[in-house]
């Protein structure tokens, strides 16, 4: 099994964190995993992305040229990366900020992650809604391991942050292409 | 009654310096200070690149070389690793105020607890008498053949006055070796710079105007007169900070 994922959005949307949480959850499952960031000069704004590979055997290049899954949180990132998705690959799209129009929507899970996050009370957790959606769409990492990672990285003494991320993840899991 | 003796921090060897050079006196001032303060066994000196590169052949305590200009970076690390030791640099005008200006300014600005002996002889000695950052306007050198011209070479760099602006610096004094009275003042200043380090007060620097008869093209006695009559007008003596 090899799952190659590109996660992209604008700087500040938390795509790096999304990738790290996913990578750590896969690590807890004893899988081989790499996380590789774009490390350009953009800190806020611009296109930010990272690449995660989860596999059962040793991983060669951590750089993803053809993705099994593309998680996209804004429109410029969609334009930049949609050509990197394999045929029959999975596209998880933040429809609050980007829509696929008139194209083949097979394999596209698009939901308004940003709006869902705003309704939860914190726009910053749109990334974790997307992660929940990914966990629902592909049964590669277990939700219990994602929750473990949340617990290990949440700042001590601020249970509010942990709680809202847990709720965001749960909201994402409920989304179903159906 | 014995009134003069070799100090234990100097080896009993002849130096390689030219007749009338100030380095021999300056080395001795450092050695006397180390002995007066009783710190020979915990002193670490940093020799520069320049005429004094083999100062460790004359000083009887631990020493390191540094790349040209990097003495204060080397000293910074030694002092941080061994805060109980007494660490000083001995640097010429090229080393401290040209190729090593950056290291000098930043060590001073960090307020490193170090003592700096800065030998200003307004010329590059070891390489054959070229223009120094501290050469005087009009001074003829191998690379300012018609004399230092402010339009071509800029002005004599007063790095001590520049460093005095930095809050990390606790003590700066300019002294001279041109007569015995001034040498005694220089000795007091060197001792002050070391005492400041013992007292953990921060960055101390003594600038010593020192004769270079060979590359000034003067007899040794005339070189001393030149410091007195010409050089100290550009570089006034006394406490700067």
């Amino acid at each position, binding site marked *: 099994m090899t799952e190659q994922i590109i996660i992209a959005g604008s700087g500040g949307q938390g795509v790096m964190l999304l990738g790290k949480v996913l990578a750590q959850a896969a*690590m807890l499952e004893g899988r081989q995993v790499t996380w590789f960031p774009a490390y*350009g000069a953009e800190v806020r704004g611009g296109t930010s992305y990272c690449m995660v590979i989860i596999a059962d055997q040793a991983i060669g290049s951590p750089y993803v040229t053809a993705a099994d899954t593309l998680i996209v949180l804004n429109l410029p990132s969609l334009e930049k990366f949609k050509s990197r998705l394999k045929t029959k690959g999975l596209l998880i799209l933040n429809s609050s900020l980007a829509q696929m129009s008139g194209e083949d929507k097979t394999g596209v899970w698009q939901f308004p992650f940003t709006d869902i996050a705003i309704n939860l009370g914190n726009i910053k957790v749109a990334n974790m809604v997307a992660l929940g959606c990914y966990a629902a769409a592909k049964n590669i990492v277990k939700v219990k391991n994602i929750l473990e990672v949340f617990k290990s990285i949440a700042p001590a003494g601020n249970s509010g942050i942990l709680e809202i991320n847990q709720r965001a993840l749960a909201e994402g899991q409920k989304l179903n292409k159906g | 009654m014995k009134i003069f003796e070799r100090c234990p921090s100097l080896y009993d060897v002849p130096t390689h310096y030219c007749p009338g050079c100030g380095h021999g006196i300056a080395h001795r001032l450092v050695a006397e200070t180390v002995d007066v303060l009783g710190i020979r066994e915990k002193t670490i000196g940093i020799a520069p690149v320049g005429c004094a*590169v083999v100062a*460790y052949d004359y000083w009887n305590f631990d020493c390191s070389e540094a790349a040209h200009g990097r003495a204060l970076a080397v000293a910074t*690390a030694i002092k941080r690793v061994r805060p109980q030791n007494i660490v000083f640099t001995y640097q010429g005008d090229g080393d401290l105020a040209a190729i090593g200006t950056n290291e000098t300014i930043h060590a001073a600005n960090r307020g490193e607890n170090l003592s700096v002996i800065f030998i200003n002889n307004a010329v590059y000695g070891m390489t054959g008498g070229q223009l120094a950052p501290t050469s005087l306007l009009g001074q003829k050198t191998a690379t300012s053949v018609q004399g230092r011209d402010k339009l071509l070479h800029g002005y004599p760099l007063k790095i001590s006055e520049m460093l005095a602006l930095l809050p990390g610096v606790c003590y700066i004094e300019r002294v001279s070796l041109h007569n015995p009275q001034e040498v005694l003042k220089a000795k007091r200043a060197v001792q002050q710079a070391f005492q400041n380090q013992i007292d953990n007060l921060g960055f101390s620097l003594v600038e010593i105007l020192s004769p270079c008869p060979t590359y000034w093209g003067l007899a040794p006695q005339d070189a001393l007169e030149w410091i007195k009559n010409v050089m100290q007008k550009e570089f006034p003596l006394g406490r700067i900070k």
Partner: protein
Amino acid sequence: MVKTKILLSGNEAIAQGAIQAGCSFYAGYPITPQNELIAYMAKYMPTPPGTEAPRVFIQAESELAAISMVYGASAAGARAMTSSSSPGISLKQEGISYIAGARLPAVIVNIMRGGPGLGNIAPSQADYFQATRGGGHGDYRLIVLAPASVQEAYNLTQTAFDLADKYRTPVMILGDGILGQMMEPVQLSGRKIKTGLVKKWALSGCAGRKPNIVKSFFLREGGLEEFNLKLQANYALIKRKEERYESFFLSDAKIILVAYGSMARIAKSAMYQLRSAGKKVGLLRPVSLWPFPQQPFNRRNSKVKYLVLEMSYGQMVEDVRLAVNGKNTVDFFGRSGGGIPSEEQIIGKVRKIYHENI
């Protein structure tokens, strides 16, 4: 003993490895793509004021100052390290030469990026020549170690400190932007922080002994040649003892891929894909780039062909050619300037060159 793995970037793993190896002095200057390393050191190195044997972190004013600080700290007996990326390593060459000349141990990390000049911040392996030929002025070498995973970066950093002290020589960890930035699970070792190594030559104040002098200047006639011969004897010993490499399927391979660092990971997956298609391909991964591993090239059938793969336009390939000394065919494929060769490109290259033979 820590049992669980943690997810670290290569930069962080090198920093953590250094601290566990007893590194007590770090000086550096920020440059992409190694900034996580200096940040990790800033966070975890400093000890409380007044500590007897302090652990020191300094953000230096320049690369020149940083490497000279490492020189000073090492002269004072500390295990000392600096890190940078290509343009910064060029600046450090002055100090590296002095460190080699003064017989000081030190660890220098180069997380390579694209060049020449300011180049870009993409991964690259174009500093191989600079690393393995000494890099600065004078007749000297560094031990150069090239990790291919985050775990190995952690392990080899600890080895680097041991080798630096053993041979009193600078050791370079040569990685690239992929290795530095990539996160992978790392198993931390139970290695306790080493302190209080006795270095009789170090500057500590001359109480109870003759003064120690740390220097690289030899004015007396014949003095420098005498010293350089001693250095060469040390290098000969290192060559005999410290060749390191990893190999796969060398015994039956008709084609041997040769690659180091990140490039070797990609070559390895390409090799496995080719082998599952029945092609007799092997892989040789030099871990020490200097000394370059000669041993695995010896006594190999002259029909075996080598394909050297690099993120440069051909640097290590020269050492492979020297190692086979005309006995075998040596081919090359590389990209430089931001392009990372993919498994598919390597497989394509192997099939194209050797179509008839495998």
